Each structure stands twice: as structure tokens, then as C-alpha cells.
């Protein structure tokens, strides 16, 4: 017989827990849900747009009754649970019915805090929590004119904005001097107040309410200083309190909320709790992002997997008032030992403040231009060392030129028809529609449904802005560090560590060790694991071709029509008549339609049929040409300039240096592609300062630069150090590559990796620690022993992987 699970509280956190549970253990429980509201589960966040008349109730339903039926869940809505009889493991409802459980999840949410003043129960005094409240406010707006909202926080301002949109004249009363004082510093709070005033909102603050006036219905509000305001509707939006009434009555240990441990278990081991009613490590939460993290962990334990822990969340906040861009996260007030960077441009209505401690971002407040909110938040979560780009932090991630969305940095300023994602042609309107109609909450979900931001990622900031304007802070639901992929909850770093320490030697062993959710993983994790194993055990590991993306399996780039392109190596960008003649002959012999000079100083043959590849390679091989790995997460090109040999400004032989580096490093597999360049003087004709590893010759030696990128997001290199000899260039280069190979996560290029670990760290490992550098260099050279086999020759001459290039059968 299946175990019985009861959920008390049919809200966002509870139902999310069920969804997570159904994903991992669909048949484990017979599930019954009790909810005191008379509906299925709806998106509470979107009550604000409903109040503002931008959405209807029908549009904000997340799980209708059909969903419960389809999943075999018994739903009792409009039914309040009055008591949990823990001794007999059953719940008793307010109307006297009962039901038994093996496990129970409490998700009773919170109650609006009603300021305890005389008159608080008068007709015309409402809270802002559920559908009923919103319906009451909309009805009042039809009959009455003057509203007072008590509370200048997120909820109060959204209520005030909604009522204004419904045609009421609204005054916000706030006890503090600053609006949203828990999210904003004084300056940002002032700017917010100013722009709301310009929209016609009134403020009465600081002011403490002492009485609600009226006999049959509310008529006004009186304050401590004796002043009064006329009102025929009063909204109490002065905060929320965890709803722990049921838990307390049933003898479950509570403080401010129901106290749970890192597995979301209460003091009664068969009872779990999630959502706003919960107190975890002394924190309570009032935004959906952390609640969804709790839901995932709780489901993991309900399913008896038992390996996830909830460790608390970092939250960020946005305000859902159309046209106002505001972002806040972390500790933005600083204090002892912290520094602030502030930028204020009053005429543009823009304000930014970052609080930094020990080179890590502690908090951020952005007003006006919030496109970088997501970036700062990411840096905070990663605990990234920002020393190296501190002087650029303020200008944002995009100031160095982001390709692909026309330089837009404000989603609000875009019309519905404007393109947000240049790779997939997705417009703003389509994204907004998908978020509301499909009930999406996370960036991942928006990517899956709309494809926006799913390719090159340069529009991610804009997409997050759009999500924020629709969902408020609700979108920022990333755990501290992302799991490797959907098949596991373990991170890249955890997996790599285990591979090394447990001496795991196959993909299968890794998956078994970590209890992978899908038996053979997916297209994201398999290539990553293949790489990690190969990097850890260069001699022992048996490469798994089926876990490589087709380009790396076929050693050529797949094209949109299913043909392939072939790019032979042209060492340091130097060629000769023999190579060119060989290429010309191959082009003629195999009728290759396009021959193109690439951006990497070599020649691309495009449109080769797959079955011709081995023969093409054989011919190229005869002319001395080998694979250029243009298809691989591997060493790509080493661009050079003509250098001292010919150029009147050249200070060193940059061409020879480039060729030497390429010969030393070709064939090496990496977390992502890796590009190098060597320039003969600071004029830098080989563009070394936008490469993963760039070398610029100067009269006295060589400057080594790292972490550049010229692609989606331009990032110039950081100067690593200066060395005197060619041998040193090689040693530092290989040591840097090996550090990157061993420590960057799969699909991190050097630029984001360095931004995460910090230039200081890389310098310490590669420059300061001489012994360490030599050891890195030695490990690289060792692994090259197994990597420098030309894959083309192996396939053309030794028929390695022959089946890859021939059909199984032809029937015509």
C-alpha cells in the first residue's frame, strides 16, 4: 500500500513541494491536500497586477482542479484544518472530518499583520493577501474615492499603485522616514518616493497610526501627532507574520515560525514544513525564491532520497510597479570594515550603490538602471573576488560591449514588439506572455519555453528585468552554486573532487556514486563528466565517444544542412605553397562548395559530406596538414603577427613564438575552447589582449596576458606578468592552461572563470608559487603525451571509429 501524505495549505510553497515530489517519486504517496481558500493553487505574486487591472484572476491560476485530478491528488479546498492529532497521525478539519497520514507537510503561509489600533475591524479596512482581499479592494474602488494604505514596504506600494490605477486617490502612510527601508538606503528611498509622487501618489511619513476612525464604516485615520486623514478605504499592509496557529495548537515547536532543520523537518519527525510559515536557522522568508528552494529539498526527503540540505537563501528584491526599476540585495548599509562605491546621476534618475568587504560584494542597491542587478547578485552568491575589475564594476557588465541586442539596457523602455533575444528572435511581448500564461518563475523555465537567453546569453540581464517587472523578486531563485545539470543536485566542484579523491574512472562510476537521477545522464552532464575524467586521469581514462558532442566525435563542425566543415591547423597562421596546393586539390577532388579564410588565421572548407571526411583527411594528411580542432573544447588557434623578422617595429620573433606555443599545446582538451595570440610589439596586430592567453612582445621580453574574450561579451585580458625568455613564456602558458583545465567548470571560458576566482588567485598559483607552477607545467606535459595524436590521421589511416562515417545500410 502506498504511504499517505497530507499537505496542509494549498499555496505556492506547498504545491511546489508536491510538484517537485511528483517529478522524482510520482507513485510514492497517496496525496491529500487541505486548503482554506476555495480555489486551486494560484500565483499570489500576481495579485498586484490583478489589482492594477492588468490581469484577471483566471490568468493567475497555476494549478487548476484538473491538475489535482490528473495527478491523483485528493483536494479539499475551502477546508481549514483545525488540529493535528499527532499521536494518531491524523488531521481534524474545522467541519469535523478527519484524515490519517504517514507524513505531513505544513505550508500555512503567513497572515497579514494588522496594526492593533481601535477601529481595525471596521468595514472598509482590508488586508492584501488573497483573492478575496483583492476583490474587496476592486469593489471598494468602484464606490469610493479615498484610500489610505498603511505600510510603505513592497506590499503597501504595490497596493497603492493598484488602487491608483483603479482610479482612487491614494495616500501611503509609513512609520519610517524611508520607503522600503529594509530594501533601500535613504537615497534610493527618496528617489522612489519622488517618482511615485510624480505619478500622483501621496505620502504621509513618518507617521504612526493610532486609530481608525468611523462608526459603521471607516471614515479616516488618526495619527500620533493628532493629525487626521480622510479615507473610505484603509489597506493594512504593514508586514506579515508566519501563520503558526495550527502548529502551535498541535504542539509542534515554534518560535517566530515553525522551526525546521536543514531537511525542512519540524520537531515532529513525520511532519515537515515549508514556506512563509517556516523559521530556518533563525530566518523567515517572504519571497517565493527561497520557498521554492525549500520545496525542492523537502521533496527530496519525502521521496526518501535524503541527500539535499537547505542552507538558507540570499534574496534580492524588485518592485512590481510598471516603469519603476529598482533592485536590492544583501547588506547595503555597510558598516565597519566595508567600503561603498556610489554612482548617482540625478538627471537620468539613476543611482547605484555597491557595498564591498574584503573584495567581495556584500550588497547592492540599484535604482533607475537595474540591468546589472543579476550580475551583481551572481557575484555575491559566488563570493567572487572583484579586485581585478573593481574600477569597472560600477559601469556594469555590459559597458565593454555586449553583442546582439542593440545595446538595450532597459526592458521597461522596450515596446512589446522589440526583439530581446537576437539569437532566437524573441520579442519582449512573447516573454511577458509566456511568464504569465505558463506560470514561469525561473530563468531556466523562461529559457525552456521561449528560447530567449538560451543561446549566447547576452540578453540575460534584459530577460531578468522583464521577469522582475512581472514577478518582482520572485525570479531570483538560484541556489548558491548551480548543480551540474538536471540529473543531479551536486555541483561541478563536488563531482570533480570525488573523481579525484575516490579515484572514479568511468562515467558510470560517477553516476552511481552520486545517485544520478537519470540512468545515463543527459546531453549536458555526459560531456562534462567525460572531460573531468579525462583531465583527472589522462593515462587511465578511456574516452567515451558517445558522451561527446557530435563535433568532437566526428572531429569536424556540423553545419545546418548536416554536412561538415574542415579546418586544418595552420601553425601560427603561417602557410606555404605546398599546403595551399594540397588544400586546392582536396577542394577540387571532393567538390567542396565553400573555401573561407576564418577569423582565426586559417582556412575553412565548408560543406563536406560526412562519409567523405576520412578521405578528405587522408589527402590533407599527405600534404602535412592535421586537425585544427576548430570543433573542440580544446586549443583552437594561435594567431601571430609577422614580428621582428619582417616588421620594422617588431621587437621579438612573435611568429616563431606562436608556432612554438601551438606545437606545445595542440590537442589538449579544455573546459571550453582556448585561443592564443602572440604580437611582436605593443601595436598588438594579433589582438593578443582579447585572447584566453595573449603574449605581447616588448623590447625587454614578453608580457603575458590572460582571460580575454572577443566573443559574446568583450573582455580585455588582465596582465599576468612579464617574463624574459621564450622558455618562460612556454612554462607560464602551459601552467596557466593546466590550472584552467583542472579548476574551471566545464563550459566556463577563461574570462568568467577568472572573474569568479580572481586574478590574484591565478597570479598566486602561476606567478608567485614557483614550485606550484613547475608542477602544473609538468602535469600538462604529461597529459599532452596522451593528447597529441592527430585524430584525423587516426581515422583516415587506422580506421578508428569507422562506423561513425558509414551508413549501416543503403536500400534504394
Amino acid at each position, binding site marked *: 500500500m502506498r504511504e499517505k501524505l497530507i499537505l496542509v495549505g494549498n499555496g505556492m510553497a506547498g504545491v511546489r513541494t508536491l510538484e517537485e515530489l511528483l517529478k522524482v517519486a510520482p507513485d510514492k504517496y497517496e496525496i491529500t491536500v487541505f486548503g482554506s481558500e476555495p480555489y486551486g493553487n494560484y500565483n499570489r505574486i500576481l495579485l498586484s497586477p490583478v489589482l492594477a487591472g492588468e490581469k484577471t484572476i483566471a490568468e493567475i491560476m497555476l494549478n487548476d482542479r484538473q491538475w489535482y485530478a490528473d495527478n491523483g491528488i485528493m483536494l479539499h479546498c475551502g477546508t481549514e484544518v483545525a488540529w493535528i492529532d499527532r499521536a494518531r497521525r491524523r488531521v481534524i478539519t474545522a467541519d469535523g472530518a478527519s484524515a490519517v497520514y504517514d507524513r505531513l507537510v505544513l505550508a500555512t503561509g503567513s497572515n497579514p499583520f494588522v496594526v492593533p489600533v481601535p477601529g481595525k475591524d471596521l468595514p472598509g479596512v482590508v488586508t492584501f493577501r488573497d483573492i478575496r482581499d483583492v476583490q474587496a479592494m476592486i469593489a471598494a474602488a468602484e464606490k469610493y474615492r479615498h484610500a489610505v494604505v498603511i505600510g510603505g514596504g513592497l506590499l503597501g506600494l504595490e497596493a497603492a499603485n493598484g488602487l491608483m490605477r483603479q482610479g482612487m486617490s491614494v495616500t501611503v502612510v509609513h512609520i519610517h522616514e524611508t520607503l522600503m527601508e529594509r530594501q533601500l538606503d535613504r537615497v534610493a528611498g527618496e528617489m522612489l518616493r519622488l517618482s511615485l509622487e510624480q505619478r500622483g501618489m501621496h505620502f504621509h511619513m513618518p507617521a504612526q497610526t493610532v486609530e481608525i476612525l468611523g462608526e459603521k464604516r471607516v471614515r479616516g485615520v488618526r495619527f500620533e501627532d493628532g493629525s487626521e486623514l480622510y479615507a473610505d478605504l484603509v489597506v493594512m499592509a504593514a508586514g506579515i507574520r508566519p501563520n503558526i496557529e495550527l502548529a502551535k495548537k498541535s504542539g509542534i515547536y515554534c518560535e517566530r515560525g515553525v522551526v525546521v532543520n536543514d531537511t525542512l523537518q519540524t520537531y515532529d519527525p513525520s511532519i515537515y514544513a515549508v514556506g512563509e510559515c517556516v523559521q530556518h536557522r533563525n530566518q523567515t522568508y517572504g519571497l517565493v525564491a527561497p520557498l521554492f528552494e525549500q520545496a525542492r529539498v523537502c521533496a527530496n526527503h519525502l521521496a526518501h532520497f535524503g541527500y539535499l540540505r537547505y542552507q538558507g537563501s540570499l534574496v534580492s528584491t524588485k518592485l512590481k510597479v510598471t516603469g519603476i526599476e529598482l533592485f536590492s540585495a544583501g547588506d547595503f548599509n555597510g558598516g565597519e570594515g566595508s567600503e561603498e562605491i556610489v554612482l548617482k546621476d540625478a538627471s537620468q534618475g539613476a543611482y547605484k550603490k555597491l557595498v564591498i568587504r574584503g573584495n567581495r560584494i556584500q550588497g547592492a542597491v540599484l535604482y533607475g538602471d537595474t540591468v546589472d542587478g543579476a550580475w551583481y547578485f551572481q557575484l555575491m552568491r559566488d563570493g567572487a573576488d572583484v579586485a581585478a575589475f573593481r574600477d569597472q564594476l560600477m559601469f556594469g557588465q555590459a559597458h565593454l560591449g555586449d553583442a546582439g541586442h542593440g545595446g538595450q539596457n532597459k526592458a521597461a523602455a522596450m515596446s512589446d514588439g522589440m526583439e530581446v533575444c537576437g539569437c532566437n528572435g524573441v520579442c519582449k511581448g512573447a516573454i511577458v506572455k509566456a511568464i504569465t500564461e505558463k506560470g514561469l518563475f525561473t530563468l531556466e523555465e523562461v529559457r525552456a519555453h521561449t528560447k530567449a537567453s538560451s543561446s549566447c546569453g547576452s540578453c540575460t540581464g534584459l530577460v531578468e528585468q522583464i521577469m522582475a517587472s512581472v514577478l518582482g523578486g520572485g525570479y531570483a531563485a538560484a541556489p548558491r552554486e548551480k548543480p551540474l545539470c538536471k540529473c543531479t543536485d551536486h555541483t561541478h566542484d563536488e563531482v570533480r573532487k570525488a573523481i579525484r579523491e575516490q579515484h572514479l574512472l568511468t562515467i558510470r562510476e560517477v553516476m552511481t556514486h552520486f545517485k544520478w537521477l537519470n540512468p545515463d545522464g543527459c*546531453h549536458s552532464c555526459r560531456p562534462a563528466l567525460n572531460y573531468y575524467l579525462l583531465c583527472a586521469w589522462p593515462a587511465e581514462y578511456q574516452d567515451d565517444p*558517445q558522451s561527446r*558532442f557530435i563535433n568532437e566525435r566526428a572531429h569536424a563542425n*556540423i553545419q545546418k544542412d548536416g554536412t561538415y566543415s574542415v579546418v586544418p591547423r595552420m601553425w601560427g597562421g603561417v602557410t606555404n605553397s605546398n599546403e595551399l596546393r594540397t588544400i586546392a586539390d582536396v577542394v577540387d577532388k571532393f567538390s567542396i562548395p565553400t573555401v573561407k579564410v576564418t577569423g582565426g588565421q586559417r582556412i575553412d572548407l565548408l560543406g563536406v559530406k560526412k562519409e567523405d571526411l576520412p578521405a578528405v583527411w587522408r589527402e590533407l594528411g599527405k600534404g602535412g596538414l592535421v586537425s585544427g580542432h576548430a570543433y573542440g573544447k580544446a586549443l583552437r588557434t594561435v594567431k601571430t603577427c609577422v614580428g621582428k623578422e619582417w616588421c620594422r617595429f617588431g621587437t621579438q620573433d612573435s611568429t616563431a613564438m606562436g608556432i612554438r606555443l601551438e606545437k606545445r599545446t595542440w590537442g589538449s582538451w579544455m573546459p571550453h575552447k582556448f585561443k592564443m595570440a602572440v604580437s611582436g610589439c605593443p601595436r598588438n596586430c594579433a589582438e593578443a589582449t582579447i585572447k584566453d592567453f595573449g603574449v605581447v612582445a616588448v623590447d625587454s621580453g614578453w608580457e603575458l596576458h590572460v582571460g580575454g574574450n572577443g566573443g559574446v561579451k568583450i573582455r580585455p585580458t588582465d596582465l599576468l606578468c612579464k617574463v624574459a625568455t621564450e622558455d618562460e613564456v612556454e612554462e607560464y602558458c602551459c601552467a596557466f592552461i593546466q590550472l584552467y583545465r583542472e579548476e574551471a567548470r566545464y563550459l566556463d571560458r577563461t574570462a568568467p572563470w577568472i572573474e569568479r576566482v580572481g586574478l590574484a588567485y591565478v597570479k598566486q598559483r602561476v606567478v608567485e608559487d614557483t614550485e606550484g607552477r613547475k608542477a602544473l607545467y609538468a602535469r600538462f606535459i604529461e597529459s599532452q603525451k596522451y593528447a597529441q595524436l592527430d585524430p584525423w590521421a587516426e581515422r583516415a589511416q587506422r580506421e578508428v571509429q569507422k*562506423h561513425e562515417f558509414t*551508413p549501416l545500410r543503403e536500400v534504394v
Partner: protein
Amino acid sequence: MQWIEAGCLEDIPILGARVMRTAQGDIALFRTANNEVFALNDKCPHRNGPLSQGIVHGNRVTCPLHNWVIELVTGSAVAPDEGRTACYPVKVEQGVVSISLRPDELQKSA
């Protein structure tokens, strides 16, 4: 039903695919970790990407061009993507894989 021999099970890599050329276009034959074989029209419902070149995992394949995931059993794209490619009946007997060239429309459409 008319069966045509496609080749030996051995010749299809585990978690891989091979192509069979036919008058009606390429058919991709996939072999899963459990040694089951599935046959799909070698065209992704998105933009005709060659599914045979994708990464096979579970009973699914990821298209190499834009990462749509296709169910091997039904030929349907995994939600939220939408679309379906034809699938063909397959049998494996004594290590020999045979397929029928009449696409399996009814019983498998999910």
C-alpha cells in the same frame, strides 16, 4: 508487416546511432543502454537536424543543432518544445535489427 534487415545490433554503438539510407530518406537507428533499438526519421521536427548525430540518453536523443530533446519511442519533442518526427517499427532477433518502412503513426502517437 514487411520487415527489412537493417544490420547487426553489434554495429550500432550503445548510446549511439547509425543511419540507414532509404528511398524515402535517412532513417536513424538508435541503441539505448538497455539494448533496445528505435528508428526515427533522421530529421528533427525543429529544423530538420540529423538526429542520428545527437547524444542518446535514456529513451531520448538530443538534436545536435539546437538541443531539442526527442522521445525515441514516439518521435515527439519533449515539452515545452512541440513537434513530432515519424517513427518506424523495429525488431531485434538473434542480434539482427529489422525495421518496417511504414511509419508507425497510430499506436505510438502520444
